[in-house]
């Protein structure tokens, strides 16, 4: 019961501290929310790319687009002779066109699509070697295979991770400074209370607890805002991106949806850590008990 009463008093002191901080609360929450939104966005994007890359990377398939006037059957037979080739599936341009028309609104124009061969391999290590070999076949206009795209996407993901990390770290540092100033102001306004409590033997945790909780509240509020923004972006942007990726690379099939919950959790943990950590550091610096 005693512990509960102390916790209740700490919560009460936290609310008093938040009231005293006034507009500074919103400044801290805004900056932290921006940092967390960027962090969450980068995290979600890199997770999605990782998923795509891993699903593409495991697909042992090469798409070969034939030149106009080439006979798919003949080319398929040639390709079948190549070692490690397991199956060659012919997708006539009429079939591809009909499928595209069933999925998308396309203008009534002549079919621009080429005949396509989907070459499935038996050995993952042979993907690049076979791709190089296919390029040498004169009847083939262009080839595309997931592994190559996966590599490019991976490069993009690495860049995104570094850029996201730098931006998040910079904004987090800015947030820490603002949190530090805000908590310092609260400490100054509570100087007398802190002195009385300290000299009368009240636990340091009772004195610092409300300040740390105040920081954690900033983190929670900012994480909630950031998660809401990410959810709205996910809601409106994801279907569009999904369609774009499918049209770009039809053979990948349906993309796996990561879900936003893990990202929300990480954003919340980071927000609370930055908020509470900043407050704890400031209270440790200015309150000597």
């Amino acid at each position, binding site marked *: 019961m*005693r*512990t509960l009463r102390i916790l209740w008093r700490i919560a009460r002191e936290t609310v008093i501290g938040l009231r005293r901080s006034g507009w500074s609360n919103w400044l801290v929450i805004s900056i932290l929310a921006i940092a967390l939104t960027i962090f969450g966005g980068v995290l979600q994007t890199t997770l999605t790319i990782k998923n795509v890359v891993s699903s593409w990377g495991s697909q042992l398939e090469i798409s070969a687009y034939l030149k106009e006037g080439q006979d798919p059957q003949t080319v398929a037979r040639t390709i079948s002779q190549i070692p490690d080739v397991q199956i060659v599936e012919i997708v006539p341009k009429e079939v591809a066109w009909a499928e595209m028309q069933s999925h998308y609104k396309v203008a009534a124009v002549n079919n621009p699509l080429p005949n396509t061969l989907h070459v499935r391999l038996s050995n993952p290590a042979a993907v690049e070697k076979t791709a190089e070999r296919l390029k040498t076949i004169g009847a083939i206009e262009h080839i595309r295979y997931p592994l190559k795209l996966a590599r490019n996407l991976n490069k993009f993901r690495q860049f995104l991770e570094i850029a996201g990390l730098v931006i998040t770290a910079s904004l987090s540092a800015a947030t820490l400074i603002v949190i530090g100033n805000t908590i310092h102001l609260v400490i100054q306004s509570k100087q*007398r209370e802190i002195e*009385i409590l300290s*000299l*009368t*033997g009240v636990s340091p945790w009772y004195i610092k607890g409300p300040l740390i909780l105040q920081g954690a509240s900033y983190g929670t509020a900012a994480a909630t805002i950031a998660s809401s923004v990410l959810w709205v972006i996910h809601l409106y942007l994801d279907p569009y991106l999904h369609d774009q990726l499918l049209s770009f690379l039809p053979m990948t099939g349906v993309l796996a949806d990561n879900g936003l919950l893990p990202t929300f959790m990480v954003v919340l943990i980071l927000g609370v850590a930055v908020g509470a950590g900043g407050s704890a550091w400031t209270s440790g610096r200015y309150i000597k008990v």
Partner: protein
Amino acid sequence: MIRLQNVYKEYNGKPALSDVNLHIGLGEFAFLTGPSGAGKSTLMRLLYREETPDRGVVTIGGINITRLSRGQVPLLRRRLGIVFQDFKLLSNQTVFDNVAYVLRALGVDELDVRRRVASALAIVSLEDKVSAFPETLSGGEQQRVGIARAIVNGPPVLLADEPTGNLDPQSSLEIVQLLERISERGTTVLISTHDVPIVNALRRRVITLKNGQVMGDVDSGVYEYEAAVR
């Protein structure tokens, strides 16, 4: 109750206390006197562990407080009552809430808080001021609130650092007499002061510090040593 053995403390190479040896018994009442810079405040800060000595031992109730860890310091302070010169009251809280403030922070049950606060306010004769705010009280009354807060937790030791420094002579006398009455209830009371009339009026034990050293320790003494060493 309070014992200092060969205590030495310096700031920036200058000794603030030098080889101080003192013993103040349980329930004893003593004045700690001396001119500004004599080391009175340093000695008080050592007692409530705001500072630690560079050498020597300070014990309160048989516990060597110089060896306490940071986590143990609050436990020591719960056994001390401290009265300040500037009262240190919370202006936005009533007399009752000021006295109850620390008890509530320690998680004491509200019924017990009410009982203990009422008892402490009765001792300082402020039962009729429970709902008043500090700014509506006289200096003497504010100091009595400070004393009520210091004794509300029933500490065996009461330290008063210049408690009459901001008060008129009449209020000063009332405050010191109040502290004397508290001592009679079994609390060890040490008052740091350079209030000559008060010390001379009470004729109690007087410990005189000068340049960080104990220059006099007299039972039923008066504040005359300072004049002698000036």
